[in-house]
């Protein structure tokens, strides 16, 4: 029997798929290969690894990871979702752009307001230094009436 074939039989034996007769036959064969016989003994004495790691059967332990995966899938699959999800998604995506836009609009609005205030105060100052002469207006109206009569 070839060495590689014996190695596979040793693995079958350690996996528990060989009958006792087949194991006996294998052990007889291994007498001709002392190094393999030593490996066979070491492998057969390995501890069982089946329960080394337990499955966390409670889904709650994986809940957040699973939720995150599902959310990723929904993001990939695009539109066609509930209104709330779409709104939330749009808000997340465009929150920065929206806040910049709001900031810009309020800035422009306040600038316009401050310009208006400036004009008003300029007029008030002008009127203070150069008060409007009501007589001038009256005489101009009289002058126009005279012109019309002529």
């Amino acid at each position, binding site marked *: 029997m070839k060495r*590689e074939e014996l*190695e*596979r039989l*040793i*693995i*079958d034996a*350690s*996996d528990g798929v060989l009958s006792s007769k087949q194991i006996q036959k294998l052990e007889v064969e291994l007498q001709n290969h002392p190094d393999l016989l030593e*490996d066979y003994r*070491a*492998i057969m*004495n*390995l*501890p069982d*690894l*089946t329960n*080394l*790691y*337990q*499955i*966390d*059967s409670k*889904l709650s332990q*994986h809940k957040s*990871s*699973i939720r*995150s*995966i*599902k959310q*990723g*899938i929904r993001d*990939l*699959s695009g539109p066609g979702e509930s209104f709330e999800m779409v709104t939330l998604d749009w808000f997340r995506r465009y929150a920065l752009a929206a806040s910049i836009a709001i900031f810009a609009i309020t800035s422009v609005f306040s600038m316009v307001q401050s310009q208006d205030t400036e004009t008003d105060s300029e007029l008030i100052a002008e009127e203070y230094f150069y008060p409007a002469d009501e007589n001038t207006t009256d005489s101009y109206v009289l002058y126009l009436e005279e012109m019309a009569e002529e």
Partner: protein
Amino acid sequence: MGRDDWFEKQIDELYPRLHRSMKAYLAGSGVEAEDILQETFLKAYKNIDQFEGNANMYTWLYSIARNKCIDEFRKRKYESNRSSIPVEEYNIESDEFKSKDQQEDTELLKEAISELPELLRSIVVMKSIDGLTYPEISDVTGVNEQTLKNRMFRARKQLADILKKMGVNQS
């Protein structure tokens, strides 16, 4: 049931088992099983058209996850640093019924598995921890069953050597 609903159901069913397997495979590497699985499921969803209906969904996901891990190991040059990870980093599930000696042995056993080279470690995890059959492991790795058994021989032999050096009782 729509495609998305079906896929979400697969996540609920397969995630816990795949998580256990990845946790064993990645022990001591510093790579998180959760991150790998997140990427795995998203990639699987993107490439769902490549999945053949009669194939095994679990082994298909497993092969994607394993490839993700190998990419991550390459990125981190994991193989060169792996042996320097202290034993304390191997988290052990607390088991009140296990004696202190048994818990230490469990810890060392996990470390011993992580000491194996990737090629051998992946087979040990798939076969001995996850319980996949050789044809299923063949699906994941693309290696024929005979070669897998020869690799398993090398893996178990190395594992026995490592445990012997660690002084773990083998019975």
